[in-house]
């Protein structure tokens, strides 16, 4: 638990002070907070998860001078994710899972669960930040950012979360 809190603070810190300011290869934005939104434990009709999403978005907005952008994205993502996870894994299993991670869901199911969320996140971000609905550049940005973040998300989970589970089983 303590390890997870530390990891969460580290992700937010990285997002605010480093990754918010960098556009990799002109098209890729790395957002560690999406990882938190995806992995966060599912509870049926959890108002807490919506509120946490909103506050997390607001925190990023305050440091990013983008009031409303991240808070609206995080709230929509949390709501969508809570519905989507039921479609992907079903209610009973979703309730049992401690984290919606690749270790718990398996590679294929995790891809099926996380990729639409990533796609929605970057589509909303692209629309709200550039104010352009569809352009070739935006589509390229969405696709490249989704793939890069998916790979980073997998790497992160295999590096850090596996370690936590080993501890929990002891």
């Amino acid at each position: 638990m303590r390890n997870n809190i530390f990891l969460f603070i580290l992700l937010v810190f990285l997002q605010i002070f480093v990754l918010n300011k960098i556009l990799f290869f002109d098209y890729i934005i790395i957002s560690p907070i999406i990882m938190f939104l995806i992995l966060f434990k599912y509870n049926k009709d959890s108002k807490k998860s919506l509120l946490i999403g909103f506050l997390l978005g607001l925190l990023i907005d305050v440091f990013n001078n983008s009031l409303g952008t991240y808070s609206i994205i995080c709230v929509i993502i949390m709501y969508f994710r809570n519905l989507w996870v039921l479609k992907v894994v079903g209610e009973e299993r979703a309730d049992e899972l401690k984290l919606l991670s690749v270790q718990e869901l398996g590679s294929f199911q995790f891809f099926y669960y996380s990729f639409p969320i990533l796609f929605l996140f970057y589509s909303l971000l692209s629309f709200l930040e550039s104010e352009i609905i569809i352009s070739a550049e935006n589509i390229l940005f969405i696709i490249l950012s989704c793939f890069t973040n998916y790979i980073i998300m997998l790497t992160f989970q295999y590096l850090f979360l596996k370690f936590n589970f080993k501890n929990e089983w002891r």
Partner: protein
Amino acid sequence: MRNLIKFISLYNYSITFLILLFVSGYFLINENFILKTKYFNSSNYLSGSVFYYQSSIVNYFKLDEKNINLEKENQRLNEKIIRSYSSVKEDIDSSLNLDYNYIKAQVINNSLRKSKNYITINKGSKDEIKVGMGVISSSGIVGKVKYVSQNFATIISTLNTSFYISSIVKKTNTLSSVNWNGDNPKTLKLLYVPKHIDIREGDEIISSSFDSIFPQGISIGKIKEIRKDVNSNFYDIDILSTQDFYNLSTVYIVKYLLVDEKVELEKITDEK
């Protein structure tokens, strides 16, 4: 009443979602939301202080770059002094600029990738910074002060699609406007230059003093490409910005000393 309570308890999850969505949407749409000026941007005490410490660390690693920029600025100022000895016009221009005072500040946060970019500086109302003041650097125009707290201020950057600068084509003295269209951070748009004006690629664009924000003659950029649109009376012009926003560290806030007098006079003239 009982039905209402039953309805709320049944759909409380969706109602919470809609409330949060509405609040976020309100923040997003209403840019002049009063709380935004005090708590919800990087000019507030907490985030401003954090960015201040961050920039002091980052600036240490940029000292080499800063030295090179200072050398260039020195060279430019020396050339200007030498030119002013031999040019009467230059003397007149520089005497006009005495109506302005400059307050030096450090950039502590700077965004580049959005369509509405902002910069945070380490000077605020206690240093006599006010909303609407112009901001320049040694290489040209940076933006305009948008929000001020006691110790910090946020600046609406030239790289903000809603910011327009009153400008002049230096060669022809044609009044025009400069705006960013949200694409390339190095390229700005020069607007409202009629097609009969003789302009060339490489012509310099400078600030006019008509908006009482910037002194006349501050560099904005050079014409990069001129296109003629058949359906318009004006050129479609791209200019290459002189400002390098990627390496912005020291800026100067422009304080126009006669602004109240000018605004008052223009107000009386408009009324009559």
